[in-house]
């Protein structure tokens, strides 16, 4: 009986661990000196927060307790990021793990079930449920604080 419980606990533990992945259609370069991964061609990146698609991705990592952890993820060309029921689009995106912020530039749009907004720059603060959309000339700015009940 104890053996079966242990097996079930191991199974639960395995799936409780967060797992991310990178898929590339053309190539991937692991540079251990610069501590980065560069993926090219129909790139797909997923972590526990969002899933992203782009033509190119550069992910930097650091080593923590003998394990490597992604710290900065840059996405280039035709970037699409799916975060819950929102879809962010842009020409370039950068995600920093430390503050959990996604910043998109270029032809940016943010689409949700209730709205579609466009601009030049989008800052999506995941932890604080905040979206800031700027136009190219900084004349217009839209700041949206999402429903507090909506948890990340």
């Amino acid at each position: 009986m104890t053996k079966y419980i242990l097996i079930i606990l191991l199974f639960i533990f395995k799936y409780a661990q967060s797992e991310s992945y990178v898929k590339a259609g053309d190539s991937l370069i692991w540079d251990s000196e610069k501590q980065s991964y560069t993926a090219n061609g129909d790139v797909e990146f997923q972590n526990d927060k969002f899933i992203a698609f782009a033509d190119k991705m550069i992910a930097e990592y650091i080593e923590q307790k003998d394990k490597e952890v992604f710290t900065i993820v840059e996405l280039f060309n035709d970037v699409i990021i799916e975060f819950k029921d929102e879809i962010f689009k842009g020409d370039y995106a950068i995600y920093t793990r430390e503050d959990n912020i996604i910043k998109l530039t270029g032809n940016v749009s943010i689409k949700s079930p209730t709205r579609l907004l466009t601009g030049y720059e989008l800052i999506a603060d995941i932890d604080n449920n905040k979206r800031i959309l700027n136009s190219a000339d900084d004349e217009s700015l839209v700041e949206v604080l999402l429903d507090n009940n909506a948890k990340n």
Partner: protein
Amino acid sequence: MTKFFPKALNTIIFLILVIQTLIYYFNTKSSTKVFSQKSVSVENFSSIVLSKSGMTKIGSEKLNKIDDNNISLEGISYLENSKYKIYGSNIFIDMENDVSSSKDDVEVINSMGILNAESFTNLDSEGKILFKGKVTFVSHD
């Protein structure tokens, strides 16, 4: 005339002996080469080599030494060190330039996760591994 004939005969015999010696010398030399090539093909091979990544354990179903700087690992092969474990097949290693490569499917395990690709080129002196074709990298980040 009778005095000239033995001298000519001796000269001819001497020349023939010299030619035979040369033939023997060159034949012996080439046969040694063939022997040395055969002696560097090893089955179920494993060894440790020193590279920039440190001590790397290499192994394969069959090893062929192409020359002093190039070896080919035939069949199921692997490269393992403290940074990565590469499992593939038909891996070519350029020892002089610290480059290993394969055009066959490869699986790499490092401290971040497991990577699968259709081919690889490992530029060990630059600390870079280039994977080509469809690549999937699952990390436990």
